[in-house]
């Protein structure tokens, strides 16, 4: 919570300045060095008082689009949301509470996905629910095997 200060001034310049200060040449490399950190945690590390999580998200997408790595970006974001919602891994039993935790992660994930890719995100959801991963499955980064199967890179 930064009480809205993250939107004052040129926040994009600020974001990249902080990334460089921490020794990274892009937001993506900064984020991939912390593959399971939540977007909020990434933002906090870049500026406790003046960087918002959605700015990090937006920056990551912008870089992914430039690199033509949007599906990788999607996997990256899903990993962060899952480790936030179900930190102990995929639940063995989808009781009401677990079902909500999974729903929260997947629902937000689809909403954060650019429209061009939302349908694919929904298909991934369907696949995950129809054939659930083994209990305790906990992807640790965008290169997780199961995630790559469900959402392979399709860009050059």
């Amino acid at each position: 919570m930064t009480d809205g200060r993250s939107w004052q001034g040129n926040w994009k310049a600020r974001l990249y300045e902080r990334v460089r200060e921490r020794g990274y040449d892009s937001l993506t490399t900064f984020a991939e060095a912390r593959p399971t950190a939540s977007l909020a945690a990434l933002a906090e590390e870049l500026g406790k008082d003046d960087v918002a999580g959605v700015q990090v998200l937006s920056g990551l997408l912008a870089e992914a689009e430039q690199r033509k790595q949007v599906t990788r970006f999607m996997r990256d974001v899903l990993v962060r949301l899952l480790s936030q919602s179900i930190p102990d891994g995929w639940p063995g039993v989808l009781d009401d509470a677990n079902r909500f935790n999974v729903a929260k992660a997947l629902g937000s994930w689809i909403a954060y996905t650019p429209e061009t890719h939302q349908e694919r995100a929904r298909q991934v959801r369907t696949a995950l629910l129809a054939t659930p991963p083994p209990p305790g499955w906990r992807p640790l980064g965008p290169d997780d095997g199961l995630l790559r199967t469900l959402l392979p890179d399709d860009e050059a």
Partner: protein
Amino acid sequence: MRLTALGLGCITAVLSSCATGDGRTGFSGEAATSYRQEVGPAVSSFPARESSPSTPSEPGRQFVTHTRQAIRSAIDDVERSRAGIAGSLHQLTDNRRLSGRANGVFIRHIVYGSNQLQWLHGALGGVTTLADVAWGVDEPDMGLALLRLTGPPLQAATSGATLLAAWTDFLNLADAVLRQCPSYGTERLYADMNRVQQLIEPSMRALSSLEPAQVEAAAAAMPELMGQLTWEFHSIREGARVATERADQMMAAAQLVEMLTLVSALRMSLPRLPPAAPATLGVGLVMGSNGVMVGSRLAVSAEWVERMRRLVQAGVLSVPAVSAAVRIHAGQVMMAQAHQELPRGVREALGDGPEVRGMRVTGKTGAGMAESPEHHVLPDEFREWFEKRGFTGAMSIDQFCVKLEQAHHQAIHGGGNWRLGRLWPNEWNRMIMGALREAEITAGRMLTRNEILNIVGENMKLYDIPMNFIPGRRR
């Protein structure tokens, strides 16, 4: 000078639980002695700050818990006095009481009182709902934001109950005068009651609106109003005494005693008119280890002060509103210095401080944001969707408005210098509705109210939207 008792008996009843902490505020006979306890030497000691093992990882959660406890205690207090008032009003509707006398001309005054019980009940219900939901949400910031929403209705109910208790005192006085002092004249008494009702009405209306700014102003003006009411009470009773003496010198003394006995059974205390010499507000008001003292009398207990401190520091109640309550408790309602502050020591004990003064938002996000647009966090266009999921009444989506700085507002609406990706659905409303609907599809069922708040709270953090709700208006 010393005001030995509060202006009006029922007010004392309302407040007695504050001072004695015994929770007895009912109108039953056994409770009749309880409010006197506040006069005696105070025995309670300043309560230790909650020393239960605190989990350092969850200070926010604990803060929510303690604040909610304080709110619940405050609700209990008001609920008890409300029940007492309801009982008293019901008794007056007996045909042998006020209701059945003077051809029933005073029925409308009783009905006016009864009508107030309804909005008090509604306000307390809303506070309870919000406090319970706050307790249920996972995110402490969201919990605290919900608890802050209880401020206006809680303040309205507290002040409203005090005012209604005073009105009930007047009804009981009218009842006694009709019975014991027929020579006072029904017409005169009727005019008196109309005049008193007119005094009460504007504040009562402001409080019953539950509208934050109106409630705040009415609460801060309470001591002055209570002073006026005390004066009115005194003057009616004096008039009755004089009229009785003139009509029947022989009977006067006996009747007066009888009347006073009756009044005293209803726990009326004798109000005293202010001394001719101007009194300075706050004289003799000292924060001691037992609470706020007026001379040797305990005005409010340390427990009450501690509870108010919690509510002030959580941003639920304001310092001016709580100070007004202390002045009423202290019996300083007779003094006209409406806008003077309490002594510093007392204010500090109540949690006053620069950070608290800056925290409570009544319409602005902060300095320099005067023209901040108001934004429904739960999108207005989807009102029905939220209503179906329990966002009604005290939890209506109009409660969940935030003030945002212009740049921020544009940013979350996808305007301005925001879009990094061309088709990025970054517009808040679309994003949050997308997240909620996709979560429902994933869960295969409707989300509960708390689950929605959970998701909304997380996304507010992501967007850095200040977790500070300002009840807005329906568009």
